[in-house]
């Protein structure tokens, strides 16, 4: 088996997505660890390449199966998203939102067909997707729908670097009110989140993942003093996971858990337990990995930066980090 094939969905064509996708796919550090291919509109990608003075030798195909990495060409799975003059770099517009999700879906389909091993999606622009009238509440549910998995079974794991350590935080529930999130927590759901975290870590090259699981209540309920979800739901789910040979420990109080060393990932119960940590301590942003579907899928740690799009000012560092993570070459612990 050769290097992993990684599809880069080029994101909002009006943003910096195509630029950072191109810069990453052409970078020698990326080509050393994977076989990248782009997904998007050819005219849009060429427009960004011109703006940045890049001369990619694009080979356009309609299916990832026809990709070829042998001769220095960069394979593009071509999507016809714009007619000449229809793309407005730097602008918010419905066709831009549609294009971003079309590229992502095409890449996901290629992964489902086994034609690529993982997908990274360059940044989209929420307002363009809203203008397009598409219901979108983040990639986990989007990937789940594309993969025919119940959106309830898809989880989000935020990945970022903090003080030289790769932090990974998976969420058992996400975009639900606090009241509803608590109702959604079942033994099955928590087990599923732990197992999905374990299997994604293995696919990312962690041979023996160690996972810390948070409680729901203050101090993880302090032995049942404040809430019983730890004893009735989370503890049993951890025991189930152990029976399935997953090295999971907990439940730990969420306030002290993140100080613990030696874990490859943390699993938290609700959105803010993980997102507050990530947004506060990920100085260069956090990438979001979708867990629980057959597709290994990551977003990039920043937005589409419409203000600097098409100006050759975008840094591909974050998308390269995401690719390294998917290729299993980012630092663990």
């Amino acid at each position, binding site marked *: 088996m050769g290097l992993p094939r990684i599809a880069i969905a080029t994101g909002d064509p009006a943003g910096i997505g195509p630029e950072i996708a191109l810069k990453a796919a052409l970078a020698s550090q990326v080509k050393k660890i994977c076989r990248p291919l782009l997904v998007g509109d050819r005219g849009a990608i060429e427009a960004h390449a011109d703006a940045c003075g890049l001369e990619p030798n694009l080979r356009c195909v309609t299916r990832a199966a026809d990709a070829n990495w042998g001769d220095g060409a960069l394979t593009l799975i071509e999507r016809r998203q714009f007619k000449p003059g229809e793309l407005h770099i730097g602008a918010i517009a419905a066709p831009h939102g549609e294009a971003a999700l079309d590229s992502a879906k095409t890449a996901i389909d290629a992964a489902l067909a086994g034609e690529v091993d993982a997908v990274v999606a360059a940044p989209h622009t929420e307002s363009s997707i809203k203008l397009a009238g598409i219901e979108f509440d983040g990639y986990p549910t989007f990937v789940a729908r594309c993969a025919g998995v119940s959106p309830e079974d898809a989880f989000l794991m935020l990945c970022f670097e903090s003080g030289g350590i790769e932090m990974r935080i998976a969420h058992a529930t996400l*975009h*639900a009110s*606090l009241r509803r999130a608590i109702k959604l927590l079942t033994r099955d759901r928590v087990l599923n989140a732990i197992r999905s975290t374990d299997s994604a870590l293995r696919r990312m090259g962690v041979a023996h993942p160690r996972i810390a699981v948070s409680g729901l209540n*203050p101090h993880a309920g302090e032995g049942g003093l404040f809430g019983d979800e730890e004893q009735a739901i989370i503890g049993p789910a951890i025991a189930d996971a152990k029976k399935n040979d997953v090295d999971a420990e907990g439940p730990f109080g969420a*306030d002290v858990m993140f100080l613990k060393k030696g874990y490859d990932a943390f699993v938290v119960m609700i959105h803010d337990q993980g997102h*507050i940590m990530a947004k506060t301590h990920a100085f260069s942003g956090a990438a979001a990995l979708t867990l629980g579907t057959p597709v290994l899928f990551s977003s990039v740690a920043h937005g589409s930066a419409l203000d600097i799009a098409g100006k050759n000012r975008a840094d591909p560092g974050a998308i390269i980090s995401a690719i390294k993570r998917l290729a299993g070459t980012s630092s663990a612990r």
Partner: protein
Amino acid sequence: MLESRARQLGLRVQLSDPGAGLTRGSIACLHIPLSVPCRAGTLDPRNAPYVISLIDRAIEGCKAGEFAALTTAPVHKGVINDGGIPFVGHTEYLAERTGAAQVVMVLAGGGLRVALATTHLALKDVPRALTREGLERTIRVLHAELIRRFGISAPRILVAGLNPHGGEGGYFGREEIEVIGPVLEKLRAEGLQLTGPLPADTLFVPDRLAAGDCVLAMYHDQGLPVLKYASFGRGINVTLGLPMVRTSADHGTAIELAGTGRAEPGSLIEAVEAAIEMARAEMRTAC
């Protein structure tokens, strides 16, 4: 007990009565006897009355003006309850014993101050516990005490929402619209500087924090993980709304470390220092 623990740890220290003059290397100790003999690392519910009597004596002394402030070391809540004394935490106990109408728990460390609108209760009970009246009282106490105890003349408070993304306009919960928002509006009309309800996940970024003197989180785990991470476990706990200054270490009893000499006093030292500073700030504002 303190003398035998010092011997066990190889610490050379002279304990003397508070009335006696202090000499180098001696510590004033108000003697309160154990209920039953104790061994480091072993919980004994029979000593629950002893633990409670320490707190009671300190409360009395603060009320009488004998002490300027109170700092508490960690207690084991479970074993006090096992000893037949209902006990949720220091904060709640002190509030009850001093008849404080509303106390507010604040954690400080790593350059941050985080107050909690709800403290030690099951998360599923938090939405119900969050009422307009309670939140209004909490904010009033917080505002007044930031002036009185911290010497901040015009406190700016950053208030978190309850739900992800601050409820996103009612899409992920309505507490921001029905409870938090109206309270903030009412108090702003009185001149309090309140920002919010803010999405909690972006509340702790440096630019945002620079615009406030204190964060008010809606529940325990919304406020504490970031603070503990930022302070490397050296945060302290402050109770506002009591008739006295009260601080404490922000960690537990760590029974497994008791008697080993491996316990770090960092947080407790910070707590004592903060108590001294707050007692001084109060004296200044009183002048």
